[in-house]
């Protein structure tokens, strides 16, 4: 298939500043279709910002980002259409507080993809079942645990049939006993061949699920390799320090 040779995500020489702070420095990163890339690094290294530039929630200063072979458009309808093909899961779940769990999952398919209500409802229930929260369908987000909310957020993204999924520290706001249930859903997705970019601090998850691990520090990508390479033989001193610092606990 010639299609599979087009990378899903391609970033070239991406630069980004927040005021005086240079958050992304010459970032180039390619994610192939079906690949699972985990981005790790100390806090403030720019990994979340990188993740958010891929669907242009953060505009960039210079460089180029292509999704499925096409450069990201300017803010507007074309960008909205493109965003609908990229699922995104946030640290703080960000479910719509005034809507039930079921409505949260149905909303975008109906509004953006113009699916009929019945079809959207059936698909939403199916997805809620898949992430194990179908019994909560009639509740509102505040009535669910963090782990359940995050699984709903994943279902909400999946309802759009995305070509790729971005995860911005999906387990960082969760109580420890709920991290596993969210990571399990993500592991399933990875097995099914979803293209995924995951910013996380879960090293065991990275080791098990990632095709590639990208290590970032101070706005730069310092390492980019298989988890075996990275965790066993980190090439840079910064990566070694980072891995040592998290090994202690």
């Amino acid at each position, binding site marked *: 298939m010639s299609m599979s040779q087009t990378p899903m995500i391609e970033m070239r020489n991406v630069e980004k500043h927040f005021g005086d702070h240079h958050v992304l420095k010459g970032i180039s990163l390619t994610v192939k279709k079906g690949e699972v890339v985990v981005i790790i690094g100390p806090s403030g290294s720019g990994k979340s910002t990188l993740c958010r530039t891929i*669907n242009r*929630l953060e505009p960039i200063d210079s460089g180029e980002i292509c999704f499925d072979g096409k450069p990201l458009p300017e*803010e507007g*309808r074309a960008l*909205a*259409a*493109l*965003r*609908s*093909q*990229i*699922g*995104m899961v*946030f640290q*703080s*779940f*960000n*479910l*719509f*507080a*005034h809507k039930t769990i079921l409505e949260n999952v149905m*909303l*975008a398919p109906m*509004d*953006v993809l113009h699916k009929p209500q019945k079809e959207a409802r059936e698909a939403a229930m199916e997805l809620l079942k898949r992430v194990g929260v179908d019994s909560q369908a009639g509740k*509102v*987000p*505040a*009535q669910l645990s963090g782990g359940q909310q995050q699984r709903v*957020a994943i279902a*909400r*993204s999946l309802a*759009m049939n995305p070509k790729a999924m*971005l995860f911005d520290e999906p387990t960082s706001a969760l109580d420890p006993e709920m991290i596993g249930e969210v990571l399990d859903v993500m592991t399933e997705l990875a097995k099914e061949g979803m293209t995924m970019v995951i910013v996380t601090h879960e090293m065991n998850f990275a080791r098990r699920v990632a095709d590639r691990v990208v290590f970032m520090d101070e706005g730069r990508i310092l390492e980019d390799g298989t988890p075996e390479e990275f965790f066993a033989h980190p090439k840079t001193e910064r990566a070694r320090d980072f891995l040592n610092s998290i090994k202690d606990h």
Partner: protein
Amino acid sequence: MRIEELLSQFGSQYVRALLTTWELTALSAAIAFLLGTAVTVMRISPIRPLRRFGDFYVQIFRNIPGASLLILLVYALPYLDVVLSYRTCVLMAASLIPSAFCSEYLMAGINTIDPGQIEAARSLGMTFGQIIRRVVIPQALRSSILPMTNLLVATMLTTALASQVPLNPRELTGIVAHINTHAVGGVTAFLISAFLYCMTAVAIGQAGSWIDRKVRILR
């Protein structure tokens, strides 16, 4: 004149006045709400001149006394060859001012929404209009029911401006002036109107609290 006499002589006129006040209130509030919502959408839009215009609008109508606005509409607009009926002038005065407050309450409601929800909606491919309609306005409304209830009462009281122009049929304040020129109603004539205003306000307040309990967002 005692209250029984007043009521037997002018009772039906009071009823008519009460209905007129309700009608003016409902119309003004509806217009105020539509204008207030439109101005609020301008104030949060990505287009800077629109935001500026929205802020300017609110500053103007939040800070102008109702009587001054009514005088401008009735006496100044004709110089610009715009002659509006008295009723239209009253409706405009009683809706333009509340519309500015309506926008302020909606803005306060919008500020209670976690920006993360907006980002989530954007990441799902929803357009600005969809996000406003489906995520922002519904939540802003639910968290501004109580201030909106107060605004509805304030709008009702603003319709008393109609007593300053010849309006037919008269509303609750106008009827008092009318009675006191035809009979010696004294303060009792005022008290009857005040009581009717009061009862209406209590009913509005009760309805507001009930709706607020029904639609409040769990956080």
